């Protein structure tokens, strides 16, 4: 009879444990970690038939929105101590503007911090006008055409293009040049002093191409003299191919490597098994009734 109340006490204690909360959290992590938003190729932005009006409207937008940091004519602004407040834009080119403004990184919320991807402030037309204006200030890479970052169907001689080989080649280039910062699955990684390499998942191919071309923020550039256009195209093809790849082994745990695996081994593995152990050893409900005779003879081993 004593057992009855004791087990009741236990039950209520269990209800109060934070285990349930942790479990919910873990399940949440599991699902968010495994799901990624579908990848939609960006709209084509190859048409760069810029007109004088485009440049003029771009200039007006620029003076209103950008000149505070980058100067009236994109010459850059220095702080009192001689550091760059906003860098000069004479030779950054249209690709850079399209990337920075199109991904919402520019305008910056606050100078000095790392530019984050956020909803763009300017619409597509305004972005192109800004790009046209900045492009007119000097030299610099143009906005890539869709053919730059999509695998062709045929080679120049008309034979079928070996897409699989291109993807495989792109994977090797990716693992050599990109994974060091962006992680083996393009999930991003930490950089010195609070900086980070952003995720590549869900980034439109055009922006990947522009980022490679121009090296935004701290990222080194992979100009055409460094990484040939075809190689950039192959990297993008690899990223797209792996994006569509199923998660063969179940949920991906965020593709962060052994750290997240270790956390899951402890929380789900050990947590779950200890839960089972508690259940196995827990006292079962007791009855107030008693049995008059025992059927089994318990050998006394004392």
């Amino acid at each position, binding site marked *: 009879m004593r057992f009855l109340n004791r087990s009741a006490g236990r039950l209520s204690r269990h209800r109060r444990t934070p285990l349930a909360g942790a479990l919910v959290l873990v399940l949440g992590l*599991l699902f968010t970690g495994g799901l990624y938003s579908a990848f939609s190729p960006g709209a084509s932005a190859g048409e760069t038939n810029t007109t004088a009006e485009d440049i003029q409207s771009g200039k007006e937008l620029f003076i209103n929105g950008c000149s505070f940091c980058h100067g009236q004519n994109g010459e850059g602004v220095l702080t009192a101590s001689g550091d760059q407040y906003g860098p000069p834009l004479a030779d950054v080119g249209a690709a850079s503007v399209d990337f920075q403004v199109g991904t919402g990184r520019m305008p910056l919320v606050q100078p000095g911090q790392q530019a984050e991807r956020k909803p763009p402030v300017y619409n597509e037309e305004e972005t192109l006008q800004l790009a046209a204006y900045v492009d007119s200030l000097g030299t610099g890479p143009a906005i890539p055409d869709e053919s730059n970052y999509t695998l062709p169907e045929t080679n120049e001689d008309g034979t079928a293009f070996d897409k699989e080989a291109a993807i495989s080649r792109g994977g090797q280039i990716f693992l050599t040049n990109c994974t060091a910062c962006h992680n083996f699955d393009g999930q991003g990684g930490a950089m010195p002093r609070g900086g980070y390499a952003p995720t590549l998942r869900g980034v439109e191919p055009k922006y990947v191409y522009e980022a490679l071309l121009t090296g935004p923020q701290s990222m080194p550039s992979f100009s055409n003299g460094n990484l040939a256009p075809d190689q950039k195209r192959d990297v993008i093809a690899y990223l797209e191919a792996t994006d569509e790849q199923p998660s063969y082994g179940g949920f991906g745990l965020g593709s962060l490597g052994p750290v997240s695996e270790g956390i899951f081994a402890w929380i789900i*593995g050990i947590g779950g098994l200890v839960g089972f152990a508690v259940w196995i050893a827990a006292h079962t*409900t007791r009855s107030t009734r008693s049995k008059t005779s025992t059927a089994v003879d318990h050998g006394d081993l004392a």
Partner: protein
Amino acid sequence: MAATPKKPAKVGAVANWADERLGLGGAMKKNLRKVFPDHWSFMLGEIALWSFVVLLLTGVFLTLWFDPSMAEIEYQGSFDPLRGVEMSRSMASTLNISFDVRGGLLMRQMHHWAASIFIASMMIHMMRVYFTGAFRKPRELNWVIGCLLLLLGTLEGFTGYSLPDDLLSGTGVRAADGFLKATPVVGSYMSFFLFGGEFPGDSIIPRLYTIHILLIPGLLLGLIAAHMLLLVYHKHTQWPGPGRTEENVVGFPMLPVYAAKAGGFFFIVFGATAVMGGLLTINPVWKFGPYDPTKVTAGSQPDWYMGWPDGLLRIIPGWESTIFGEPISWNIMIPILIVPPLMLVILMLLPFIEAWITGDKREHHLLERPRNAPTRTAVMVSLMTFYGLAWAAGGNDLIAIRLDLSINQITYFMRVAIFLGPALAFYITRRWCISLQRHDENKLLHGYETGVIMRSPEGGYSERHLPISENAAYTLTARDREQAWTPSQKVDENGVAAPGGRLDGIRSKLSTLMYADNVQKPTAAELEEAHHHAEHEHALTAALDGHSADGHQFDGHHAVEGENLRGDH
């Protein structure tokens, strides 16, 4: 058991046949109904044992397809993005197991999850044994065997996850090469002997394979057998309680209850591993690609159990000194070659250090609650804090990116915390345990808090305390009364202390320190005094003692006739 007339004929015949050849009757008589106490924390070691069995089973499956060779081939399997890439046969066969063998990826993932759980469960089992004092005489040697199992398990894990020769594990092997080279005098020789020449060579994977599937599993099996034999010989420890003494062991017999619970738990561990292997990706080598010394990925980390030396490796400043014109790499030696072996030695010596300090040479079969050994508990929490901080440092890049922090600041913080944290944890844990002891003492002397607030005629409020049950009181007092070790005053005729005097002094001081602030259980006189006081109090409030008004019958401390909370079942 030899055939008895009671047994059914068939069983009897088999038993007779076996006993006439093996003489099992004698051993079975003692062991078939051997008693094992029941408590959830006694099953943590079982998780380790069963996950080891899962490792053996899944491991054998993997060996059927795995090819531990570093010969380069061009991958032509069914995983498109790597087709045409040069890789070692071990990587190619790992991809083959993952993509072309049905259930192969499941077995790989089960093997890897089971390995993580194997080592994690060994650690929590070890914590349980330490925190409850189960390592004390006569079980010190089993503690040492357990420490060796933990070491071997870790090495087994490292050799295992290096086998696929993928980019991530290859980076780990390369770091291991750096560790070997940092060994003074013989470092580069050790590296050349292990790798069969210059890193990476073509020998390391086959060699690790032999170590992984033969050498270490053999040692593990032997030590596990010794561990279990000693467990059976010593009989399991038990929690103190009514009828549970140092001289007996109370629990369920091996056959049938314990065998069923242990056997059932095996299936549960196996099943849980299978569910994890099926649902959660672990070590997706196809994403890393084959090892290539020029490639690397962000978030290059070892498996979790190697994470803490890796963390130390991350937070150590760039210390290197020169001796005889040769470099001494403190920035590698301290985190890898000095601290982890030292930690293992400290772990193995803990039972002996404690026994020396306390001077206690008795056998102990009753467990102690962590609160009743505040210093011991605090020592382990302090070691765990050190481990945990080093472990967190091993994931500093992921902490930085997830929590928007700077790697540099985390590193600076860890450099300080790794020293302050354990000291702070020691202090807090010790005081915490002592306050819990005070709480227990209060319960013994003044009863438990009923939650019933009484208003006195004068208008003051007080909470009503009621005495705890006889069994609960006994359980609380069923522990040692501690006394600090003092050297026997042996002084010769000239007044000179006997040899060993200085060491005795240290020992005596440590012993005092260990027990100084502990709350000892009340003496019979103190209990008497307190109960007398309580009765007096009780008499004053007796008039208010209506039945079922104060609700204390549902607090789990008292059984109440005829009032059931949950019905009969």
